[in-house]
């Protein structure tokens, strides 16, 4: 039996999403931009999905722009804002590469985080200083981190930005958040919100960007004027329908899923920490008593092990049918030390020994038991033999 503990990388597609998608490939396959009945039916599917996602994300239907995933949504937000308005982009040092590398590409400013992984609000205010150069056009701070699960204080970020750079748009990458946080509430004051379907039981290759009315973006793709001229190209109708179904189901289940998965995650993380020494968990304070994981999403058990390398650990875990991740990788498939851990001040050696076990709505006690058997044993073996 495979124990899939890599739900922050991607998730199984929910059966209801598959069911919603299939007829859109074989029966209602019209081009939503067309004029005939089958085209109109397809367009109706988009309208329905837009309404569903608008409700899930606390936006108006017209503010939903469908994209080919989270990376495109992030790029559209940042490049679209810079292309339309010029100026500078700002983001935190722990952003996903889709944001971080884009901001760096445009020579933007990177804001440091505190040792607990949350953005340094003083450093953010400093980065918004008009004296630094061109005015800040867009500030991008994620809702929850993909490696550590650490939740950013977005409300405070919004306060700082509105005060120091009122002209700036605020973008939040909520790709990791939808399963575990009320995005509509948490990102209520953000101008731009990215999501990605495959992180919450939808298909890969589809996502959305919320674009509030005050945010004017230049399109990345110019073409047939789809998505109100904000994203050219025929929409992925079936994928969008699957995304909407998955989002609705995710949000409906959230009140029960969060405490259930948090309990599993706590048992997993506590169990690993109890079984072996030299374990450092991200985003929690050291000290006696129960571990406080309140600044982390419910699904992430993220630890660094002293004296081992993740690549070797993951190899041994895979042999035990445990699918996990070190949370950081480069295009070649090699594991580079995580920029997130570096930004949090983890020593490089320790960052090489990181492990992310990310739970999902399908995770059970059986999976946690398997991981609790395998992880301490593998770490111990590696410490003894390499």
């Amino acid at each position, binding site marked *: 039996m495979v124990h899939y503990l890599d739900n922050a990388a991607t998730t199984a597609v929910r059966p209801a999403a598959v069911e919603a998608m299939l007829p859109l490939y074989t029966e209602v396959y019209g081009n939503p931009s067309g004029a005939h009945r089958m085209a109109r039916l397809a367009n109706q599917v988009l309208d329905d999905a837009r309404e569903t996602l608008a409700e899930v994300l606390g936006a108006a239907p017209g503010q939903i722009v469908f994209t080919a995933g989270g990376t495109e949504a992030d790029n559209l937000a940042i490049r679209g804002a810079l292309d339309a308005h010029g100026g500078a982009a700002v983001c935190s040092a722990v952003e996903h590469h889709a944001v971080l590398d884009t901001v760096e590409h445009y020579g933007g400013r990177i804001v440091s985080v505190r040792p607990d992984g949350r953005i340094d609000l003083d450093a953010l205010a400093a980065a918004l200083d008009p004296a630094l150069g061109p005015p800040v056009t867009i500030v991008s701070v994620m809702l929850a981190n993909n490696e550590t699960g650490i939740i950013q204080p977005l409300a405070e970020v919004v306060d700082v930005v509105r005060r120091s750079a009122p002209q700036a748009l605020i973008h939040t990458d909520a790709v990791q958040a939808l399963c575990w946080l009320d995005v509509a509430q948490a990102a209520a004051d953000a101008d731009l919100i990215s999501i990605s379907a495959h992180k919450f039981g939808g298909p890969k290759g589809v996502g959305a960007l919320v674009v509030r009315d005050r945010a004017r973006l230049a399109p990345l793709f110019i073409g047939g004027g789809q998505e109100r001229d904000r994203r050219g190209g025929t929409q992925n109708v079936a994928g969008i329908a699957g995304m909407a179904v998955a989002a609705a189901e995710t949000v409906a289940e959230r009140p029960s899923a969060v405490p259930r998965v948090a309990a599993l995650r706590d048992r997993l993380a506590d169990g690993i920490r109890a079984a072996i020494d030299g374990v450092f968990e991200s985003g929690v304070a050291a000290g006696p008593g129960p571990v406080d994981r309140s600044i982390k999403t419910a699904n992430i058990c993220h630890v660094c092990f002293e004296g081992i390398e993740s690549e*070797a650990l993951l190899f*041994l875990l895979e042999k035990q049918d445990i699918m996990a991740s070190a949370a950081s990788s480069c*295009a070649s*498939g*090699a*594991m*580079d030390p995580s920029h997130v851990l570096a930004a949090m001040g983890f020593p490089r050696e320790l960052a090489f020994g990181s492990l992310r076990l990310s739970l999902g709505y399908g995770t059970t006690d059986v999976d946690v038991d398997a991981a609790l058997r395998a992880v301490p044993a593998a770490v111990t073996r590696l410490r003894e033999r*390499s």
Partner: protein
Amino acid sequence: MAGPLGNVLVAMSGGVDSSVTAALLAEAGYDVVGVTLKLWGGESDSGCCSVSDVDDARWVAHRIGIDHHVFNFGDDFDRYVVEPYVAAHSAGETPNPCVECNRHIKFDKLFRRADALGFDAIATGHHARVVTDGDAVRRIARGADGDKDQSYVLHMLGQAQLARLLLPVGHLTKGEVRAKAADLGLPTADKPDSQDVCFIHSQGGRQAFLGDRIPLATARLVDTDGRDVGAVDSVELVTIGQRRGLDLGGDTGRRYVIDIDRPARVVTVGRRDDLLVSWQRIDGLAWSHQPVDGPLAFQCSAHGTPRPGRLDGGAIIWDRPQPRVATGQSIAVYVGDRVVGGGVAGAAPNGFDPGTSGGGAGPAESPVRAPEPGSR
């Protein structure tokens, strides 16, 4: 789950030799897992570590039906290969990074990793053979393809490593390897051989690579009478015995670098005879098994002709005078086609009288210590 013959970790560079290595072992019934080592993150186009090389290896692994992983050994590669390479050039030596990569990365770090992960053996695509002699001693022997033989760069392997090393393409010529790859439909069948040092971009070469890391100094070129005959851009890149790449103006005779005085930035060129010495120190000599007495052959570069000599103390006494070996070069020790050990070229006597040019016999070029007769 081990196959009947055991499980093997194959180091796959994305090139044709290691592709065929993996295929041959899988065919033979080993339980094979491929791994590509990510060693270098910088700019390079000469044969390793690019995303496309990793993709090639992954593609081959998929084609032959084996698992494939990527290990990032970049930090160790920097520490044990790149930094010492730069430091050696800075010190005026001629390092051999491939040998150091084999010593520290492929046959140490990777071996330890393979052991921790439960592999019985590792395999590489080197053109050399692992043979067992009558006395149950394992040795590296020259590959079947004389032109492609890579036994020289494996001279540091000891019994513990040799007992768990498979080199299946060592029995094949390069042509046979390519034919096998084509037979199997492997996408790497026609991939060109890797060239030169893997972490150095062919465009800028060593000059650009080292120039980014250490200050490079120009030097005068003088003849054995101390007369100026030209100049070199960077004395750190000049090697004893070097002939190519010297700007000697109208001088058309064959000239070799016979002496380098780095502090004075003077490079002396002379005739080949000026390089000849009767002995050369060999440092860090390590044997693949026991020390070997008697007549030996010493190979002093990747494709050099073995030179006859014998060991006396820490020095090689040449049977007849031989050109000096640049300090820092690897020297592999052979008996017949067997590698029995290896080390690094140390000091040698100066083959010529430096005269009064001010260049010549600085301390670095003097024998640090005369060979000690009889000691071992």
